[in-house]
């Protein structure tokens, strides 16, 4: 069963084609990796799937129905939620309130409060519960991004570079966390720069370059292909 189907998807900003004639089918319950050099169109793909950006051409089906015209908030209510590459938190509110807000939309107040505390614990944020979000380090903000998104009970979770700014010892916990989300039944589209992470996590992998798909398949196998190595070596200074 495919949870998400992307057909002939193109997104252009004036002359810049950020996503070009992309076709993807994402099976339910897997971690689907998206990699590619900077500017390949990964974030734009997430923006288009969540409705932050309008589709230029093509269509997107979620659980069989066309969602291409739904506003962002409705897609989230349907079960598609994303995290942002640059964390977008409610910086003036506490970590607890940040997690509480999406829960309040879906649960009675008391249940929401219990659930928020539970999620915070699971996402390694227990000690920061009453801190203002603007006091958090970049790594912690990434965790909060994930916690907020998880609090919407998504069926499809789009994660944009969750490892950026995360310390090395935290990275392994985060890898396990994302795996456990998948084992819960959440389908995850994972955009990530750090190769080690993608190879460790993804069940299937697509490589983008200049908005085009250049490879698709099992991670170990895809990473060996010549065109993928070239695309990366051209950009791999990091």
């Amino acid at each position: 069963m495919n949870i998400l189907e992307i057909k002939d998807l193109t997104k252009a900003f004036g002359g810049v084609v950020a996503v070009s004639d992309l076709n993807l089918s994402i099976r339910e319950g897997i971690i689907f990796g998206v990699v590619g050099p900077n500017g390949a169109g990964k974030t734009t793909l997430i923006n288009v799937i969540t409705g932050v950006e309008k589709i230029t051409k093509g269509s997107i089906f979620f659980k069989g129905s066309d969602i291409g015209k739904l506003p962002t908030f409705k897609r989230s209510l349907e079960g598609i939620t994303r995290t942002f590459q640059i964390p977008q938190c409610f910086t003036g509110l506490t970590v607890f309130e940040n997690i509480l807000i999406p829960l309040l939309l879906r649960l009675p107040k008391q249940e929401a409060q219990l659930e928020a505390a539970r999620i915070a614990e699971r996402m390694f944020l227990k000690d920061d519960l009453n801190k203002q979000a603007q006091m958090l380090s970049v790594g912690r903000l990434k965790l909060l991004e994930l916690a907020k998104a998880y609090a919407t009970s998504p069926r499809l979770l789009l994660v944009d570079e969750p490892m950026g700014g995360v310390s090395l010892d935290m990275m392994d916990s985060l890898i396990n966390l994302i795996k456990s989300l998948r084992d819960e039944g959440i389908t995850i589209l994972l955009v990530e720069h750090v190769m080690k992470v993608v190879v460790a996590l993804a069940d299937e992998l697509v490589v983008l370059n200049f908005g085009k798909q250049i490879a698709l398949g099992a991670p170990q196998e895809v990473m060996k292909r010549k065109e993928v190595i070239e695309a990366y070596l051209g950009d791999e200074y990091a």
Partner: protein
Amino acid sequence: MQNRSVKPIVILFVCLVVLSFMPFIIDPGSYKYLYNIFFIVNVTVLLATSWNILGGFAGQISFGHAGFVGIGAYTVALLHYHLQWSPWLALPLAGVVTLLAAVIIGSIAFKLRGPYFALSTLALAEVTKLIAEGWRSFTQGTQGVVVSPGPLLSIPSGGALYFVVSLWLAGFGILCALLIKLSKTSYFFLAVGENEDAALSLGINSKKYKLIALYISSFLAGITGGVLSVHTGFIDPSSGFDMVHTVEPIFLTMVGGIGTVLGPVIGTVLLVPVGEVFRSHFPTAHLLLYGIVLVVFARFIPKGIMGLFRKKKI
């Protein structure tokens, strides 16, 4: 849980009842000036609370409250002038008509994000003022409209009536703010004001919450205008659409504490009496004072007086 949300409402109610007995203790007949100030304080609490619900709770800065006040004031005045409605009966309609104007401006301004809302409300205030000036056959233009009090208002101590009515209207405004603050909605307001992209991505219909805040705010501001025009007994474009109705609620809310229920109340109760005395000695100097205090608070004490209290508690 239940208890916690009922308590502030009970306190508000008790305060209103107790204050309602004021005219029995201080005679309105012999303290006309004092009761005039009381009235202005009450009405200003209502207006500042209205601004705060939109600007403080939902983070949508309105530069158009003068427009809302003017529309409310003219609704009462024109219903009285053309159809001989009692000003008191027209009062709820002042809120409704203002809300209708807000529906129009909201549907245009909230299509976009960023500073467009503030600019659109400013445009609304200016356009309604120009209409009031220009449409002479309907509004009598700059000549203004007289709102003569009906028989109901000829009660000997009218001061007491105005005091009690304005007191309960202010109470109504505070109640609205309180009910929002105690509900889930306040969190969605906060989320939208803090970061609209994040709110949308989490499933919050940001436009809906911005509109709710705008509608409540405009309704309350329209009522403020209505009651002001009854009290003054006269309305013209420059008094009804006075920029002060835009700046004063911002100023008082910033000083008291933006985004809190009590902030606008504290700001108003502390500063309006001072402003009134100041105004009678140095006309328009209070505007200079407003400007300076507004800049100082926004820059150095952005959380206002309420913010100072909060810190000490923690």
